[in-house]
Structures are given as C-alpha cells and as structure tokens.
C-alpha cells in the first residue's frame, strides 16, 4: 500500500476531475444558447435544443418514452449485477489458482479483445432477438474490469492474513469467508466503478443495433425516419444517464478516499 502525501492526493483529485470548477460549463452553455438562437426550428441536421425537448415530450405523450427508459435502466442494473457476480467469482478463482489462470489465460485474453458490436449478430443467431441476448452480450463484454481487479486483489492477499487463518485453524470455508472475501472487496468495488459506464454503453449499443427494446431502439427508429430532433433529444437523455452513473461512481470514490486514502492505489483498468 502506498500512502500518498497531501500534495499527491490533491493532484489525484485534480486528475480525477472532481475539482473541475462549474465555471467550466460556460462553453457548453454558450454553445447550446447559440445553437438555440441560430438554428432554424425545422433544421433537418441541427434542430435547436427547444425542439429536442418538444419531441421528447411528444414521445412521452405517445407513451413510448418512459417504458423505453425503464427497460434500458433495468437491463443496465441487471447486467451490472450479473457482471459483478460473474466477474468477482471468476476473478477470485483465477487469482487464487495459478493453474486455472494458466489454463484459461489464452481463451480469456482472446475473448477480452472481442469488440461488443461484432458479438451482436452472432448472439442474435444463437439466442434470437431477446432480452437474454442483450444481457448475454452486455455481460460478456463489460465484466472484464471487475474480473481483472478482483484477480489482482485476490493475488495480492497478504501472506500474514493467510498465516493467521492457519494459526487460528479456520476451516477452508471460514478462511474464504473471513479472509478472502474482505480482501477482494476493494478490487470488486474498483472494477465495478470502471465497468458501470461500459455496461451502459453496451446496453445502448445492443439496443441500437438490434432495435429490440429500450431507449436505443427509440434512437434507431427516430434516426431511420430522420426525426433528427428526437434523435438529439434521446442522445441528450442518454447523456443524462451517463452523467448520473458517473456522478454516482464519483460519489462512491470520494467516500472511499475520505475513509481510506490509499484506496485508489493498485488500479488495474481494462
């Protein structure tokens, strides 16, 4: 564990963007205002923001917005949950057993570089246009950060703790529960923080590509009939999802750093 000096910690805060002042929103706000003023209301390419809101409201009145939002967020939550379970389980096995790591290494290394988009057509062939297909593609492509970080922390459990377990004659099961699990929790948490935004992106990706359900389907439909204001509105909406996810993750990260300054050492990103 590295104990960071105060300067380094403040440097880290800066690089994490936590300290970015709100004044920085100025260019974005100005851009949107100019867009609103100078774009024609019926512009086919750059409809002004007021049109985005109007088209979203129309979509909501037609009863198609909120069910789509619900589906997307539910897929996101479910997929993230499965990612955490699968990723931490595999990470623990691979981190504790060198044999398993060596046996599965090449297979996983190959699977890890597989782009999500390419998996979609094959997943559709195997599972059809279903919700389980969406979940399968999302999990297979976004659980890697959790797996890698859990593996890293499972590998680096201090020998002292394991010796303690042996000295106390803990059973195998008790050792797993009382020594191993608490030791890998930081890895799982860190991995989940990295995986969450990826999960959101892949959920939308599958929805846009297959037009099965959710916000992604609405975006793809609106794009195919050139309802540009609706597309912009929905994209802005997905931006809000992204912001919410990032804000939530940032909040957790800040909380962690507050209580455990050494928390962010040993990062293994995807």
């Amino acid at each position, binding site marked *: 564990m590295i104990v960071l000096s105060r*300067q*380094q910690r403040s*440097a*880290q805060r800066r*690089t994490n*963007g936590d300290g*970015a*002042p*709100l*004044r*920085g*929103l*100025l*260019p*974005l706000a100005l851009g949107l205002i100019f867009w609103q003023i100078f774009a024609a209301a019926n512009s086919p*390419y750059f409809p002004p923001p007021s049109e985005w809101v109007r088209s979203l409201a129309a979509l909501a009145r037609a009863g198609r917005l909120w069910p789509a939002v619900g589906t997307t967020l539910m897929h996101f939550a479910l997929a993230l949950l499965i990612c955490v379970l699968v990723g931490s389980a595999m990470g623990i096995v691979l981190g504790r057993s060198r044999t398993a790591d*060596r*046996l*599965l*290494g*090449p*297979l996983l*290394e*190959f699977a890890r*570089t*597989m*782009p999500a*988009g*390419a998996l*979609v*057509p*094959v997943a*559709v*062939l*195997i599972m059809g246009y279903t919700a389980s297909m969406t979940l399968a593609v999302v999990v297979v492509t976004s659980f890697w950060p959790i797996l890698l970080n859990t593996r890293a922390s499972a590998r680096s459990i201090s020998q002292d703790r394991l010796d303690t377990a042996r000295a106390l004659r803990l059973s195998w099961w008790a050792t797993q529960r009382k020594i191993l699990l608490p030791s890998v929790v930081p890895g799982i948490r860190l991995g989940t923080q990295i995986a969450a*935004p990826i999960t*959101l*992106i892949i959920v*939308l*990706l599958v929805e*846009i*590509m297959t037009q099965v359900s959710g916000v*992604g389907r609405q*975006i793809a439909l*609106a*794009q195919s009939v*050139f309802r*540009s204001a609706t*597309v*912009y509105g929905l*994209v802005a909406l*997905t*931006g809000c*999802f*992204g*912001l919410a*996810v*990032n804000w939530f993750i940032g909040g957790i990260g800040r909380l962690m750093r507050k209580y455990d300054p050494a928390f962010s050492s040993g990062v293994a*990103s*995807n």
Partner: protein
Amino acid sequence: MSKALQRLNLPGLAVMALCAGLWELYCRTLGAHFGSIASTSATVVALRDLLFDGPLAEQLWHTASVATVGWIIASALGFVFGLFLGLSRMAWTYSMASIEVLRSIPSISFVSIAVLLFGFSAKTEMVIVVYVSLWPMLLGTLGGIRAAPAGLLEVARIFRLSSAATFFKIILPVALPVILVGLRLSLTLSIALTVVAEMIGNPEGLGFGIVSSQQAMQPAAAFAYLLVIGVMGWGLNAAFGLATRRFAFAHERLS
C-alpha cells in the same frame, strides 16, 4: 527455443482447442437441429471460402486501415487538446466541466447522429471512430500532465530549467505511461467502433460482412467473421504492446 515454448502456455492453448472441439461435438449431436449455429469445422470451411473466393481480404484491409488511421488521427488530436488543457490553467478551468458532461454521453449514441449528418458513407465511419477514440487519449494526456509531482517541478525551478526543458525533461516523461494507457484504450475503442460503424453507418468492411451474413442466415460465415474480427483486434493490440514495450520498461526504471 525452449524458452519460447515455455512462454507459449501450451496448456492454455490446449483448453482453447478443447473448447473448439466441444463446440463441434455439441453442434453435431445436441445442437444439430439448430439451423442458426455453425460448428467449428463449418466455420473453418466458411473462413477458407471467404478468404479465397470471397471479399474477406478486402474487408479486413478496409476495417484494419480505417481503425488504424482513425486511431492515429484521434490520438494526435487528443494529445494536442490534452496538452493544451493540461498546460493552460485558464483553458482547464473554463472547459473541463463541459468536457466531463460531453464525455458522459455514451459514445454509441453519436453513431445515430453521425448517420443523420453524413448519411451512409465512409465519412460517417471515420467521424465516429475519431470522435470516440479521441476521449481516452485527451483525458490520458491531460491526467498524465497534471499528475506531475510538485516535488519534481520544484527541482526544475531550482535548476532554473526553461519551460521547454521542464516540459521535455520532467512533465513528458512522467506523463508518458498514462499517455500510453490512453493510447491503448483509444486503440481498443477505435477497433470496436469501426466495426459498429460498419454495421450501422457504412456498408463496407468486416462489420458489414458479419451483419449481412447474419441477416442472410449464414451462421458459418457470421462465426468466421467474428473469428477474424477477434484475431484482428488481438493482433492490433499485440502489435501496440510490442511497439511500446520499450517505453513501458523505461517507465519501470524511472519509478
């Protein structure tokens, strides 16, 4: 030679072969009545057909070159922007929050906007790839530069280094590993988004190949394309790893 063999991880490769064998077995027995899956052998046959009589080589070239060119353009732009924001306090203060907001919009959503603006064209593909793979490089460069330890900067001041010397001797070497991580993430994204863009926005390359074989219900061809895309992604990543190994070692010596 024996050392190279040891590094090859034969048991791991055997597991891969075993999986391919089991899949073949499954397709011939339990899964034989599914018309929409392709066995390992059928995939290999389809791969050979696509390679020698089909458009595979051309598509592979298209996808790999777009991904690489897009990545290079995005990296250059990201580096310049990151440098600017990292070195100018003023620019950082008045734009970082906007960047955080824009970055939060899931990149995939922009594919639809790009198709709206540029139609189904090569331009769409390039714009998507560059836009999406710009971010990791920008944030990597920015983060790396801003992470320069205050102590080292004080050393530069004590030695009265010029600002150019401070940049090249202190800031850039410290930032390099983080920049390399950004470069690598950019590469992964550019490959992924090239394929997606070809599936949605530009009917060319491997992405179009895989989606059209799925729609034509040719599972063997779709599986073959998936295999090729996987190998291409792995190959480009491995090439990047080889090319930057020298710098990674330099960093290990440094820290």
